[in-house]
C-alpha cells in the first residue's frame, strides 16, 4: 500500500519550499514536521544549518520555548561563526523571556515582578550577550525593547521585596535591595522609588548624613517624584500597619 508511504522522490528543494510556505502561513506545527523530515533525509544538504534556524523559529512560535532554547543553544555551540548565528543568540534570549512571561499565570494577570526572577535574569543576560556581540544585528532593536521591559520588571521585583522588608522593620535589608536597583538597573523609572526607600531606611536607622545625601540626589535627579509634589519631601508610606488597630477595626483602618 505504497499509496500512503510518503513520496520519497520529494527533493530537498521541494521539502524546503513546502516548509517555507507553511512558515509564511503560520502553520508552525506542520512546518515543524516538514523540517524534521527534511533534517532526517538530508542532514548534510544545502539547507543543513538554515533548516535548524527555521526549526527553532517554528518551535518558538508554536510555544515550545524550552525546546527552542535547547536548539538555539546547540546551534550557537556547533556553528559559532555561521553568518546568521546572531539569530540563534537572539532566539535564546527571547525563549528565556517567554518562559519568564509564563509566570504571570494562566490569566496573565499575575505581576511578573512578584514571581520567580530566574528566567528573567537568564533572558536579560542572554540578550545582553547578543546585543554586545552582534552590534549590527537586524534584531537589535527588538532585543533592546525586551531588555528595557525586563530591566523594569527585575528592578520592580527588588523594590517589592524592599517594601516587604520595610513593613517588617528590616531596614538594612530594604536599603541594600534599593542599592541593587541603583547600581544594576540605571535609567529605570524605579530609580526614584529606590532613593525614597533609602531615605526612609536611613531615617529609621538614624543615619542623618546618608539621608541628606540621598534626599539631595532625589531632588536633583527626580524633582517630579510624587514625594516632592508638595514642595518639600513627605514620607510616602503610612507608618507600617498598626496591627492592633487593624484587628479592632477588622481591617478597615490599619
Amino acid at each position, binding site marked *: 500500500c505504497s499509496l500512503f508511504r510518503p513520496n520519497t522522490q520529494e527533493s530537498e528543494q521541494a521539502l524546503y519550499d513546502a516548509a517555507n510556505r507553511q512558515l509564511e502561513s503560520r502553520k508552525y506545527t506542520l512546518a515543524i514536521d516538514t523540517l524534521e523530515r527534511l533534517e532526517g533525509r538530508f542532514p548534510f544538504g544545502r539547507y543543513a544549518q538554515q533548516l535548524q534556524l527555521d526549526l527553532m523559529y517554528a518551535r518558538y512560535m508554536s510555544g515550545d520555548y524550552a525546546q527552542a532554547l535547547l536548539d538555539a543553544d546547540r546551534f550557537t555551540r556547533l556553528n559559532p561563526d555561521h553568518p546568521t548565528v546572531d539569530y540563534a543568540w537572539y532566539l535564546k534570549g527571547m525563549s528565556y523571556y517567554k518562559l519568564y512571561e509564563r509566570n504571570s499565570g494562566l490569566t496573565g494577570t499575575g505581576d511578573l515582578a512578584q514571581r520567580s526572577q530566574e528566567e528573567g535574569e537568564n533572558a536579560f543576560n542572554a540578550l545582553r550577550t547578543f546585543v554586545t556581540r552582534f552590534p549590527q544585528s537586524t534584531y537589535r532593536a527588538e532585543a533592546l525593547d525586551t531588555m528595557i521591559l525586563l530591566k523594569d520588571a527585575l528592578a520592580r521585583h527588588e523594590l517589592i521585596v524592599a517594601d516587604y522588608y520595610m513593613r517588617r522593620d528590616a531596614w*538594612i535589608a530594604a536599603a541594600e535591595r534599593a542599592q541593587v536597583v541603583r547600581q544594576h538597573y540605571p535609567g529605570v523609572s524605579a530609580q526614584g522609588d529606590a532613593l525614597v526607600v533609602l531615605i526612609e531606611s536611613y531615617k529609621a536607622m538614624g543615619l542623618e548624613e546618608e539621608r541628606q545625601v540621598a534626599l539631595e540626589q532625589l531632588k536633583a535627579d527626580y524633582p517630579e517624584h510624587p514625594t516632592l509634589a508638595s514642595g518639600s519631601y513627605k514620607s510616602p508610606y503610612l507608618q507600617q500597619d498598626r496591627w492592633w488597630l487593624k484587628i479592632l477595626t477588622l481591617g478597615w483602618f490599619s
Partner: protein
Amino acid sequence: CALFTPYEPELKQGNFVKEEQLRQLQTGMSTEQVQFLLGTPMLTGESPSDRWIYPIHENEGKYRHIIVEFDNGKVSRITRES
C-alpha cells in the same frame, strides 16, 4: 495583654561585632585589616569607597552604628553612633 499580642520572632539583622574586636580597631589600619577584623559592612551607604557603615541592631528598632572613614586607603576616623 499576652493573649492578644502575636508572637514576634526576634530576627537579628546587621553586623555582629564583639567588644574586643572594636578595641583592636584604630586609625591608620588598611581596608584589608578592617575587613579581616570586623568583616563585611552590612550597609553599603552613600559613599562605600571611603565610608564603611557597620549597623548593629540592638533590639526593638534601636540601632548602634560603627562608622569607619578612610582617607586614601587608611582609616582616618572611627565614630560610634548610638
